[in-house]
């Protein structure tokens, strides 16, 4: 029982860390507290679902497709919505715009789901994916646990290598530190912003593909995860990528285990969001530097 719980927490942590890293990336670069971030996961879900029905194959095979469509979506969103507002809109205005974006995306997915249901004659709400089991050193492991852990690790390592070992990555960090100075040094800030949006949305879409293996999903699922994502990023200190990864695992463990023990005490598991909310409030009010405050000198 406790083993299942731990596995579940790790899977959820993998998901959440992919989402949280993306959210804090766009928060760092373009300063958007993005309320549409959960919906990107929903986009990933429906891309993988549609393709897996058309080609009649396991949704895992469409992780790359999901990644690419997420990157394209990120590019379009940055170019159309946030680029015109660059250096013009206040932080709150950007947040309101991201709420509008959430509306547009969420209900577009609803429309796609309706159309999907009619044209392909399949269910498009309350979906769940069939998992495969992986044989690992003679042990039969849940495919989701294995694949999501591997994929998340690869993505996070690649992101680290990108940010610290490549020229564009160094430029990205420079833009985060000081956009005006970087622009003066010949870095195209807009291109970096566009890149960070592409990465952010693509990561979220990949995370989305894992979701339906764990819970039944519908177009609103992404939005309902938003509170946990924000809690993870806040716990991580709001301005740190590593912090938000650690924050994501902490939130995932405390939600999974917390809900289990709450149900043991006879309290409804529907109070689950309260854990995220309490974390968010406490960190913001008591120690807003979060986990990153442990090593960051600023």
């Amino acid at each position, binding site marked *: 029982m406790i083993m299942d719980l731990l596995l579940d927490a790790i899977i959820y942590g993998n998901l959440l860390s992919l989402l949280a890293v993306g959210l804090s990336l766009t928060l760092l670069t373009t*300063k958007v*507290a993005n*309320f549409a971030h959960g919906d990107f996961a929903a986009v990933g879900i429906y891309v993988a679902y549609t393709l897996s029905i058309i080609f009649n194959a396991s949704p895992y095979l469409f992780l790359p497709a999901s990644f690419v469509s997420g990157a394209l979506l990120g590019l379009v969103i940055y170019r159309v*919505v946030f680029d*015109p*507002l660059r250096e013009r*809109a*206040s*932080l*709150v*205005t*950007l*947040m*309101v*715009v991201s*709420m*509008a*974006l*959430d*509306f*547009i995306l*969420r*209900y*577009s997915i*609803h*429309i796609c789901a*309706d*159309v999907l249901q*009619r044209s392909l004659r399949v269910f498009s709400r309350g979906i769940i994916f069939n998992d495969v089991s992986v044989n690992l050193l003679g042990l039969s492991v849940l495919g989701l646990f294995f694949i999501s852990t591997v994929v998340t690790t690869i993505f996070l390592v690649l992101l680290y290598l990108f940010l610290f070992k490549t020229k564009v990555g160094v430029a990205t960090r420079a833009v985060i530190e000081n956009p005006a100075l970087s622009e003066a040094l010949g870095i195209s800030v807009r291109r970096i912003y566009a890149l960070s949006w592409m990465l952010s949305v693509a990561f979220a879409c990949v995370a989305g593909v894992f979701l339906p293996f764990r819970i039944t999903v519908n177009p609103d699922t992404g939005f309902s995860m938003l*509170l946990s994502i*924000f*809690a993870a990023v*806040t716990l991580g200190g*709001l301005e740190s990528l590593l912090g938000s990864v650690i924050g994501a695992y902490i939130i995932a463990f405390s939600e999974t285990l917390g809900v289990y023990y709450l149900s043991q005490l006879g309290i*409804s598991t*529907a*109070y689950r*969001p*309260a854990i*995220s*909310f309490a974390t*968010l*409030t406490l960190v*913001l*009010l008591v120690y*807003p530097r979060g986990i990153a405050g442990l090593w960051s000198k600023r």
Partner: protein
Amino acid sequence: MDATFFLLDITVLYSVYMILSVSLDLEYGEAGLPNFAKAAFFALGAFSVGALSVRLGAFLLGVGIEGDFKLNSLRYVMAINQSISKDPLLGLTIFSMTLITAISVSSIAGVLASYPALRLREDYLGMLLIAFSETIRVIARNYEPLVGGTFGVGVVDFLAWARAPQREQLFLLISIILASLVWIVYYRLSTSPFGRALRAIRDNELATESLGRDVVKLRMKVMVLGSAMASVAGVIYAYYVGMVNPDDFTTSKTFLVTLMVIIGGRGNPLGAIAGPAVYLAFDRFIQFVKQRIILPFDPNYLSYIILGAILILIVNKRPGGLVPEKPTITLPGEIKRLLRRENYR
């Protein structure tokens, strides 16, 4: 008869949205506080009615509520409505008591919410308030003794003593009076030194503080006032619908109100009149068109997408909204006239 109901529907919804817009305009437009927990303060008003109208009615009639509140509320509503139909005073007592409770509960919540408002960067504040609003809804949804959980709870008809057309006219009148009252309060505040101090805080907090304004106290006052206004809207809404359901108060409501404020124009009292009118006109138009066209999906989704796109367009093309904020000029009349003449030249 049909026209009365149509008018009642439009007016009550407009009043509710206008009060909400006024309260958000005061906090966000004038003081620069993004109170994205608007749906929660709106809900507090409605929950006060939902939780109290039946219990209060039963208490005043000297009947104890037996059994499950969730399952029996509608039965008690019917019994209390019958008593109210003979005794108008009972209905008015219930109405005023719930209104007072709603205002005081949400004022206290406003004081609580103003505590983080003093120390956080504005976008983090907005984030925290949205999370707060969702948490309130989740608690109300699962804690059944409050407003019956997902099942919802019935609300007493405090005008049950009036006959059919008069009852609707009376309700219409009450909602118009409350909405105008709220708007006049806002207008008076906005054009007074208080409003100017708020806008000064929004534009430059440090400078305002250095000129001797107590930023902490002013922000707290605004939050309390805005929250109290939102709860009045909640009370009207609950009595109008005759039912309180926690799922009515999602963050989408907050978004809609923000949309109205931005369409209307932040920081201008006229904006709070224009915004809700534009939204309601759009909403009715969609309802009208919906019945006449056939789409392979739910047209409501399309209307939400259009609303989102409208907001992005307005922020880009006309950030001031329909009625942009005007710079405040507080000079003696003669100099003002001189300035105006200067402008014409």
